[in-house]
Every structure is written in structure tokens, then in C-alpha cells.
């Protein structure tokens, strides 16, 4: 088990992402968040375990399912909610929405929803670091489907060629929208082996176990700091809710209810909570307190968002060119 401070910090973060995502799901039916949302409920441990090892100076880039990454890196919650509500105080001034989050104060450079499209851009950020001889890391989060895109291999190749300070983090949730992994990749395929074929070190782990994610990331960072070049991490996990939107979609029949229930029982938040209680680092009372604190923070962010002005007609035409 981790030191108590660190353990509590991780717990706060994972719980916060869970509560934010579930609250968004709750409020979405009000039809006021008028943009697609891809909730990461069930996948939170990866974002938290990975970002726990990053400093403010390190860059993170992400994808359409990016709320958790943004929050784990320290992105501002109010600015995120305002963005989802389409307000001018949003982190992208209402021009991006849930799929285009950014917070430059913490070097969360951006998330984009073209599958795989962010991987080479993150590789380029790492290349910029290398060209400027800076002491920073870049982390890019993507899903299993992104590894099917050509730019995944193109990025591995270039990152290895230039020994770039980048960690590729694949969150394998076994589905791309409704398409299961088995119809998309041969069962023999092993992305870690693929990365290794490029000379990139890496590891695979249980993405629902925050401590395992934390430990694997710790090793990745220390290897990179010793000059190993890029690193590849892959974590198995599962998205609880529908691909896009606030509901559950198991009734559609693209995945088995039993499979969902199995993963549901492997909840990363509950599993970690149990360990924390067992290690006597937190008790039920304190958990309750923490939950209401986060809920209050979320309410405050929603109030902020809803009270914020919408961008004006003139804003349609600004910021096309720098």
C-alpha cells in the first residue's frame, strides 16, 4: 500500500471523477448540456494512476473520453462544466465542448475525438520537448481502436527513432462504439509486442486496479528519466455506460449483460475504497464526508456554468486565425 498522503490523494481523485461523471449523467436529460459526452465511468483508475506521476510541466493529451484525464491532470472543473454547457467561460470558450478540453495552466494540451488523431500530435509535443532539450514528459491516452489506425504505428516508429520522452497509454475497454475487439483485431495481436518490435519498452496491467496502474507508471517514468526513450502502457478496463451519452445500452445486445456485471463487480473505485478501509487509511464516515464535499464542488461548478453567459454571435467569427 502507498503512503497515506498519496493514497488519500488518489482516492480523492478517483472518487471525484466518478462523482462528476455520474452527476453529468444525471443532469444530461435536462437537455442543457447540448454536446456529445463520452463518460469514463468504470475507467477512472487509469487516468488517476498515470497522472499521479506527472508534474504540472508535463504534457497530457487525450481523446473523446477525456473528462477523467483532464481532471486527473488537474484541469479546472468549473471551466470543464462551463464548456460542456456551451458557455463563454468554458475551457475552450464554448467552441470545443466535451470532446475538446484543454487547460494550459496544468499543461493538459487538449483532447480530440478523431480516433488515433491525437497520438502523432502528442508525439510532436514530445519532439518539441526533445528539440528544446526540456525536462518534461508527454502522456497520450487513447483507446484500443486507436491502435488500429496507421498513425499509431507511425507515432511509435518516430518516437522510438528519436527516443522521445512520451508514454503511450492505451485504455483497452474492448469496444469501439459497438464493435467488439474480436471483429477488429486478430486474437493473436499483441500491441505490447508491437511496441517492443519498435524497440519500445512497456507493460500491460489491470486498468481497474489503481495501485497496479500507479506502480507500472512509476516504472515507466523512472525508465524514461533514465533515458530509455518512449514507453507503452496498456490497461484492460471497461466502459460502464453507453459509448456516447448518459445511459446504459446493454439492452441493445452488442455486449452480454453478464460481461457487464462481471466488470461492474470489479469497480475500480469500490475496489480501492475497500483497500483503503482495510489499511485503515479512511473510514466510512470520512468517505461520506469526502463524497458530500465533491458533490458540493460539482454543484458549484454547475451553478457557475449555468450562470455564465453564452458566447455571442460575434464569437462565431473570432479565433479562426491566430
Amino acid at each position, binding site marked *: 500500500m502507498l503512503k497515506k498522503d498519496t493514497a488519500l490523494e488518489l482516492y480523492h481523485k478517483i472518487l471525484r471523477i466518478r462523482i462528476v461523471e455520474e452527476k453529468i449523467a444525471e443532469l444530461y436529460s435536462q437537455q442543457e448540456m447540448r454536446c456529445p459526452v463520452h463518460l469514463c465511468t468504470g475507467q477512472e483508475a487509469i487516468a488517476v494512476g498515470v497522472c499521479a506521476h506527472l508534474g504540472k510541466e508535463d504534457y497530457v493529451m487525450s481523446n473523446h473520453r477525456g473528462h477523467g484525464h483532464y481532471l486527473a491532470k488537474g484541469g479546472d472543473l468549473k471551466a470543464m462544466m462551463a464548456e460542456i454547457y456551451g458557455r463563454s467561460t468554458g475551457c475552450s470558450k464554448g467552441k470545443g465542448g466535451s470532446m*475538446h478540453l484543454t487547460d494550459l495552466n496544468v499543461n493538459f494540451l487538449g483532447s480530440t475525438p478523431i480516433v488515433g*488523431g491525437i497520438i*502523432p500530435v502528442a508525439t*510532436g509535443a*514530445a519532439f518539441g520537448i526533445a528539440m528544446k532539450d526540456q525536462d518534461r514528459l508527454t502522456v497520450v491516452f487513447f483507446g484500443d481502436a486507436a491502435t488500429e489506425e*496507421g*498513425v499509431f504505428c*507511425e507515432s511509435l516508429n*518516430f518516437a522510438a527513432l528519436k527516443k522521445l520522452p512520451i508514454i503511450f497509454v492505451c485504455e483497452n475497454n474492448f469496444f469501439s462504439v459497438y464493435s467488439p475487439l474480436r471483429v477488429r483485431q486478430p486474437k493473436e495481436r499483441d500491441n505490447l509486442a508491437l511496441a517492443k518490435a519498435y524497440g519500445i519498452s512497456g507493460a500491460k496491467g489491470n486498468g481497474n486496479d489503481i495501485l497496479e496502474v500507479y506502480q507500472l507508471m512509476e516504472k515507466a517514468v523512472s525508465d524514461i528519466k533514465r533515458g530509455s526513450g518512449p514507453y507503452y502502457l496498456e490497461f484492460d478496463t471497461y466502459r460502464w455506460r453507453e459509448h456516447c451519452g448518459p445511459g446504459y445500452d446493454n439492452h441493445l445486445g452488442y455486449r452480454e449483460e453478464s460481461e457487464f456485471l462481471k466488470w461492474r463487480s470489479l469497480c475500480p473505485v469500490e475496489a480501492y475504497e475497500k483497500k483503503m478501509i482495510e489499511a485503515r487509511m479512511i473510514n466510512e464516515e470520512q468517505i461520506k464526508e469526502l463524497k458530500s464535499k465533491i458533490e458540493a464542488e460539482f454543484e458549484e461548478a454547475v451553478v457557475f456554468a449555468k450562470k455564465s453567459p453564452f458566447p455571442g454571435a460575434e464569437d462565431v467569427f*473570432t479565433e479562426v486565425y491566430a
Partner: protein
Amino acid sequence: MVSREITYAQAILEATDQCMASDPSVYILGLGVTDPNGIFGTTLGLEKKYGSKRVLDMPVAENGMTGVAIGSALVGMRPIMTHQRIDFMLLSLDQVINNAAKWHYMFGGQMKVPLVIRLLIGRGWGQGPQHSQSLQALFAHIPGLKVAMPTTPYDVKGLLVSAVRDDNPVIFIEHRWLYNITGNVPKELYEIPIGKAKNIKEGKDVTIVSSSYATLETLKAAKILEKFEIDAEIIDLRSIKPIDKKTILDSVAKTGRLVVVDGAWRSFGVSAEILALVAENSHGLLKRAPKRVAFPDVPTPTSWALARHYYPKVSDIVNTVRAVFDLPAQSEEQLGISYDIPLDVPDRKFTGPF
């Protein structure tokens, strides 16, 4: 400013060299930028001068490497990416259109992508369907991109400097048949603003709008038109996006006649856009319906026997202009046009392959 005669290719090299010397964040990448030919001479000697860290040959991965260039631009670099054929870069349209063009806008103006993508277009020597496309309209259609297409050595240097210093992605299109033309170019670093056309020949009777290599042919046509006492004004666009509406409309207001010459397919392209622009703004000023000269809407054929019927010739420009004066078309013989070289090479000195 001290000025001397150099080629278009040398002007590109000089602009790149001076931009790299004056700004350490400028770097170049592209297949072959370090090879012995140095992209037809436009990157020669730069690796020796600036090192392989800033002059970068790259993996054959156009889309991925464009993403890399974008990512590096986001964190403060100023990449100049080069593709030896525009056709090759089509693999990178995802990164160009989805990321480079939109990054500034979609994150509320907080980041910028100062990226230049040099694209070579060309014609001749049987380069055919996948080696000689002219796709300026494709890029000009995308909000967030700028598109430059200079014709002269003087303009190519100044516009490339502006492109490198611009905080936006700039598509920089160079016609291979311009590389050996010469012109006076100042030694010093100077800028020519993107989005400004140039009135390169004053005239009172008809406005001809053209760009890049088409402008050279238009100049030849204007010379022949003098024989018919038609005094043509020629607007060289230099930039396709933003397009210089004022210079075009002012000229049309003066002449009342318009012909657009575009080295690209006819439909849905730059020529269509200019006709629309004039129709919307100056319809009442036109004495005759405007016309255009462009490539037919078919892929570029390879055989030089076919290609000579594909590309519009100087005579086509002359006859199209004659048509807006209600004058009948004349044969090349009647126009006094004869060719002393095959039409699939830029000049007599050229020998294949490209």
C-alpha cells in the same frame, strides 16, 4: 536593398535559410530535404549549416509526421514541412484539416499552429494521374488554413518568409515549372503579406486573374492580345486564401470584363470562386458574361500525346479573352503561335525524368 537575379528555387532556399538563421524555433522536415538534390535545390546545404536536428529527413508517414509537426508547433516550434508532390500529402489530410486548421478555433484561441506545408505541384513528362494534381481549391475551402501560390522569385521569397512567421498553418504551393525562372530578388529578409494579389500588368479592356504557372502563360497571351488592340490587366493572385477581393473587384470595375485562368480543374475550384465573387459583387459592372480557362474535369493523363490536349494552351487563353469581346476563335497559326519545344517540358534545357 541589394537585389540580384536568382531562380525561384534559389529564392525559396534563401528565404528558408534566412528564416532559420533569424529564428531558432524554425526547422524543416520532409522526405528528401537532406538528399543530394535537396528538393530541387530548395533545401541544399541547410543540413550542413543547421545540423540534422533542424533539417530533418523523415519516415514515410505523411499523416503521422504532419501530426508530429503540429504537436511541435503547439509547444513553440515553427516547422516547415515539405512534400515533393502534393499527391503524397493527401495521406495527411486528417491532420491538416482536423487538427492544424481547427486547433486555434476549437480550443478558444489559446493555442496556435505556426506550420508551413510546402507542396510541389507540376505538370509534364508523363507524371500522370497521381503525380501532377493541382489541389489549391481543396485547401482554400478549409477555414483556418491559408494558401499561398506565388509566381515570381521575388514573391516566393517574401511570401515564404511571411508564411514561416505566420502563426497559422499555411499551405504553400510551388509549381515545379517555375523553379528555373529567374528574377530580381533582394538579398535581405523581407515579407510579402499573405492575402494580397498583385496587379502585374495594367490594362483597360479586360481583367485576367491567374496564379502560379498560369500567370506566365497569361502574360504570353496578353502580348498576343495586343495585336488585337486588347489591353489586358493581369492580376496575379499570389495567395488563394485569404483571397484579395478588393484588387479583383477594383480591376473588374475598371475593365468591365473578366477571364479567370486557373491551373486546376474547372468545377468547384478557384476559378468558380472568383466568378462567384464577381457575380455577387459586380454583376452590374460586367459588359459581358465572365469566362474561365481551366483544366477539364478528368484526371491528368500520362502519355504526352494525351496531355497536350488536356492542358489549356496560350491560344485557349487568347481565344477565351477574344470571346468576351465577341470575337471568334482563331487557330494557333492565325494567332502566330508556334511551339519550338514539346509541350511536356518547361523549357528546352529540360531532360527527363523529373
